[in-house]
C-alpha cells in the first residue's frame, strides 16, 4: 500500500498543495497573500515534478485502478510545466482586477491534478474522475470575474456544454461497460475484439465517446463554447484553459482510442481524419475574420486541435502517431500559453481584451513582449527554427505513413492560411504606429522572465528537439505494448 502511495506522490503533492493554499491564505494579509500564495504554488509544482520519475516501466497501483508508465511521466511534466507558467504569469493580473488569490491558484492546481489523474487511468472510472476533476475547476476559473458579464457568459456556456459532453461521455462509457462487463481497459479491448464494429452497441459507444471527447478538445462541430470561454475568462486563465484541458482531452483520447478501442482503429481512424480536416479548416477560416486577438487565438487553437487530431487518426503508424500527438501537445502547450500570456502586458480593463488595433506599435511600447509574442506566433505558424515547425513535421510523418496523403496536404494548406492571421499580428506590433487610446502597458519582472524563458524554450526545442521527441517516443511505447 505504501508503495502504491509513493507511486502517486506527485499527485498527492499537488492535492495537498491546493488545499494548503486555501488555508494559508486565511492567515495572511491580502498584500502578502498575493506574493506568498503563488510562490508556494510554484515551489510545490516544482516539488511535484521532482517527485516523479521521467520514464518508468509500467506499474499497476491500487489493484489495477491506476497505472504509472512513461506516458504518465511525460504528461505529468507537461501539465506541471503548464501550471507553473500559468501560476507565474498570473499575479499582476489578479491584483489589477482584484480577483481572489487562493481560490484562483487552488483551481489551477485542482485542474492540474485532474489532468494528471487522466494519464494515470487504466480504467474507465478513473479516467472519468480525472476528466471531471480537470474540467470543473476550469469552469470556475472562467467565471472568476464575477462582476464581468462576459466572464459570466464564458463560465455559463463552458459549464453547460462541458456538463453536456461529460454526460455523453459517461453514457458512452456505460455502453462499453454493457458490452464488456468491466471497466478495465485491457478487458474491454479483449471484449471489443470479439464483438467488432458490426455490433450496434459498440458503434453507439464509439460515437458517444468521440462526441464527448470532441467537446472537451474543441473538435469542430463541437467547438462552439471555445471562443466565448477563452475570450470571457480572465486572460491568464484563458492561457491555462487553452492548453491544459486540450492536452488532457487528448491524453484521455489516446488512452482510450489507442487502448480499449484500438481493435476498432480501422473504423475510427478515417472518421478522425475527416474530423481533423473539418476542424483545422473551420478553425483557420473563422480565425481569419477575427479582430479580437483572444478570439483569434481561440479559433487558432481549434485549428491546432485539427492538427493533433490528424496525428491521432494516423493510428496505423503506431508509436510515431502517439509520439506525434504527445510532442505536438507539449509544443502547443508552450507556444499557446505563451501567446495568451503575452497579452498580459496590456491592461485591457473594461474592454473585451486586446483588439488588433490595440496591439499596434507594441514593439515600441514594450519591445520584449512584442518580440516573444512574435516568436510564439511564428512557432504557431510552424516556421523553423521553432518547436511549432518540428511538431508539424512529427505530425506529418505518421499521417503520411498511415497513408493519409490528402490529410497531409490539407495540413500544409491550412498552415499557409494560418500564417496570414498570425503574421497580421506581427504586422500590427512591428509595422504600425501606436494608436491613440491604446491600453496601458504594464510590466512585472516575473511575467517578463517567464515569457522570455518560454520563448527561449520554443526556439531551443526547435533547434534541438531530439531529447523531447525521444521522450515522447518512450512515453508512447507503453500504449502499444499492453496486451489488447
Amino acid at each position, binding site marked *: 500500500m505504501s508503495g502504491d502511495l509513493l507511486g502517486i506522490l506527485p499527485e498527492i503533492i499537488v492535492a495537498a498543495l491546493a488545499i494548503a493554499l486555501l488555508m494559508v491564505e486565511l492567515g495572511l494579509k491580502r498584500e502578502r497573500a498575493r506574493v506568498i500564495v503563488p510562490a508556494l504554488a510554484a515551489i510545490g509544482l516544482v516539488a511535484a515534478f521532482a517527485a516523479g520519475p521521467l520514464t518508468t516501466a509500467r506499474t499497476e497501483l491500487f489493484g489495477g485502478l491506476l497505472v504509472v508508465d512513461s506516458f504518465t511521466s511525460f504528461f505529468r511534466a507537461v501539465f506541471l510545466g503548464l501550471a507553473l507558467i500559468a501560476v507565474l504569469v498570473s499575479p499582476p493580473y489578479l491584483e489589477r482586477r482584484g480577483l481572489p488569490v487562493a481560490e484562483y491558484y487552488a483551481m489551477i492546481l485542482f485542474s492540474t491534478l485532474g489532468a494528471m489523474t487522466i494519464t494515470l487511468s487504466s480504467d474507465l472510472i478513473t479516467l472519468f474522475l480525472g476528466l471531471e476533476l480537470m474540467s470543473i475547476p476550469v469552469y470556475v476559473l472562467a467565471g472568476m470575474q464575477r462582476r464581468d458579464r462576459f466572464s459570466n457568459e464564458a463560465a455559463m456556456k463552458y459549464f453547460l456544454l462541458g456538463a453536456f459532453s461529460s454526460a455523453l461521455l459517461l453514457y458512452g462509457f456505460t455502453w462499453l461497460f454493457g458490452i464488456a462487463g468491466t471497466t478495465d481497459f485491457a478487458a474491454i479491448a479483449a471484449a471489443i475484439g470479439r464483438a467488432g464494429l458490426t455490433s450496434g452497441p459498440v458503434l453507439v459507444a464509439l460515437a458517444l465517446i468521440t462526441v464527448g471527447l470532441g467537446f472537451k478538445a474543441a473538435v469542430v462541430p463541437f467547438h462552439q463554447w471555445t471562443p466565448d470561454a477563452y475570450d470571457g475568462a480572465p486572460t491568464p486563465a484563458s492561457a491555462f484553459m487553452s492548453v491544459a484541458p486540450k492536452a488532457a482531452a487528448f491524453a484521455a483520447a489516446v488512452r482510450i482510442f489507442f487502448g480499449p478501442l484500438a481493435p476498432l482503429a480501422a473504423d475510427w481512424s478515417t472518421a478522425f481524419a475527416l474530423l481533423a480536416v473539418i476542424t483545422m479548416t473551420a478553425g483557420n477560416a473563422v480565425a481569419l475574420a477575427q479582430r479580437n486577438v483572444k478570439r483569434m487565438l481561440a479559433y487558432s487553437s481549434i485549428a491546432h486541435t485539427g492538427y493533433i487530431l490528424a496525428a491521432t487518426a494516423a493510428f496505423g503508424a503506431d508509436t510515431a502517431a502517439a509520439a506525434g500527438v504527445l510532442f505536438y501537445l507539449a509544443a502547443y502547450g508552450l507556444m499557446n500559453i505563451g501567446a495568451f500570456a503575452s497579452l498580459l502586458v496590456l491592461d485591457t480593463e473594461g474592454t473585451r481584451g486586446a483588439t488588433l488595433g490595440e496591439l499596434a506599435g507594441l514593439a515600441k511600447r514594450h519591445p520584449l513582449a512584442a518580440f516573444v509574442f512574435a516568436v510564439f506566433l511564428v512557432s504557431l505558424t510552424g*516556421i523553423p527554427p521553432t518547436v511549432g*515547425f518540428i511538431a*508539424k513535421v512529427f505530425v506529418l510523418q505518421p499521417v*503520411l*505513413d498511415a497513408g493519409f496523403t490528402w490529410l497531409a496536404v490539407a*495540413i500544409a*494548406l491550412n498552415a*499557409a492560411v494560418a500564417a496570414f492571421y498570425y503574421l497580421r499580428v506581427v*504586422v500590427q506590433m512591428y509595422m504600425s504606429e501606436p494608436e491613440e487610446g491604446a491600453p496601458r502597458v504594464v510590466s512585472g519582472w516575473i511575467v517578463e522572465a517567464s515569457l522570455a524563458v518560454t520563448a527561449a524554450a520554443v526556439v531551443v526545442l526547435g533547434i534541438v528537439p531530439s531529447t523531447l521527441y525521444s521522450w515522447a*517516443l518512450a512515453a508512447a511505447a507503453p500504449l502499444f505494448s499492453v496486451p489488447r
Partner: protein
Amino acid sequence: MLLTALVLIPALGILPILLASRSAAAVRVIAVAVTLLELAVSLLVAARFTVGEAGFQMVESVPWLPSLGVRYELGIDGISLTLLVMTTLLTFISVLYSTKVITTRVTEFMIAFLLLEIGMVGVFMALDLFLFYVFFELMLIPMYLIIGIWGGPRRVYSTLKFVLFTLAGSLLMLVAIVAVYLASGPEGGRTLSLVDLIAGRGRFSADFQVWVFLAFALAFAIKLPMFPFHTWLPDAHVEAPTAGSIILAGVMLKAGGYGFIRFALPLFPIGVQAWLPVIITLSVIGILYGAVVAMVQKDMKKLVAYSSVAHMGFVTLGIFVLNEQGMMGAVLQMLNHGIVTGGLFLFVGIQYEKTHRRLIAELGGLANRWPLYTTCFAVFTFASLGLPGLNGFVGEFLVLLGAFRFAPPTGLGGSFWGPVAALGVILAAVYMLWMFQRVMLGPVREAYAKLPDLSPIEMACAVPLVVLTVVLGVFPQPVIAVIEPSLKHVLALATDPSIQVAVR
C-alpha cells in the same frame, strides 16, 4: 569546420550588435565587420576548393534528429560554391550600403540581415533535405520584417503577399520531403541525406516521382519565381528597401533555381521527364511576358523586377532543356543575374535616395551631372540586356544554345523554343535601353541639378559588382571550370534514371 563557421559567424555576430544596440554607429560598424568576415571566410572556402572534382567537398555531417534519420550535413560542390560566394558578397554590399540609408531601428535591421544571411548560406550548403528546408524557411521571416518595417508605403500588403506565396509552396514541399523520407527505405533505415537518397532513388516509383517532383517544383517555381507564380515579386521589390531588393533578387530567387538543380533533378529523373514540357513552356512564356510587361513600366524598380521574371525564365529554360550548354548557362545566369540585378537595384536605390524619384517620367539627364553613376549604371544596363563582353551575355547565350539543341522525343523541340526564347533577348534590349535613355539622357531637371555624384561608400558598393560584371563577361572560364564537373554529374543523374550511385 569552415562551412559551419559560415553558419555561425552571422549568428554569433548578433550578440555584439545587441550589446552595442545603444549606439547606431557601433551597430553599423559591427554588422559590416561581421559580413566582411563572412565574405572572407567564404573566399577561404573557395581557395581551399579543389577544382575538377564532381562530388561534395568539405562535407560535415553530424546526426541532428536521430529518430528521423535527419543529419546536420553541409558540403559544397562547384555549383553551390559559386552561389555561396555571390551570397556573401551581395550581403556585404547590402549591409555596407544600408549603413548609409537605414536610419530607423538600425539594430533590428542588422539583426534581421544577419539572420537572413544564415538562411541564405545554409540553403546553398545543406546536403540534407530537412536541413535545406529549415534554411529555406529561415530566410522567410527576416525578409518579411525587412520589407514590412523598412519598406515603402504599401509594404504591409507586399510583405504578407510575399510570405504567403512562399509559404504555400514550401509547406507542400515539406509534405513531399516527409513522403520522400518514408519512401527512402524500411523503418530504421530511412534517411533524408541527399547522397544516400540519390543512391537509393531506385525505390521511388514513377508515380511517386511525378507527384513529389510537382510539390518540389511548386515551391521552387514560386521562389524563383516562374510565370504564373511571379505576382508577389514586383510588389515585394517595389516596397522593399534597397538592400532587401538586392538580396531578394540577387540571392533568394536563386534558392529556387538551385533547389531544382540540387534536389529535384537528381532525385526524381522520371518526374522531371513528366513535367518538362510544362516547365519549358512556362519558362518561355515567362521570358516573353516579363520582357513585355517590363517595357510598359513607369517605375524603375518595377521594370527591373519584371526583367528578373524574364531572366529567371532563362534559368528554368536552361535547366530543363537537360543538356550541358543549357544547364551551364542557367547556373551562370543565376550568378550573373545576382551581380547585375543586384547592381541595378543598388543603383536605382542610390538614385532614389538622392532624387526621391523613381518614376521614369520624372527623371532625365542624370548623365550630365553624374558621370560615375552613369558609367556604372550603363555597365549594368548593357550586361542585363546581354551585350557580348559583359557577363549577362555568357549565361543567356549558353541557355539559348542549349535551347536550340533541345530535342525531346515528342512535342516541340529546340527549333521552336530556341528562336522564341531569343526574342526575349531583343525585347530586353528594348526595355533596358529605353529606360536608360529616358533616365540618363536628355536635359537635366532643375529639381536635382545640384545633387552630388556617387559618394565613397556608394563607390565601394559599386566597384566589386562592376568589376565582376566585366571580368566574368570577358573571362568566364575559371568559373565554368569550377562548375563543370559537378554540373555534368547532376546532368547524368537527371537524364539517366538507372544511375544510382552518387559521388560522395
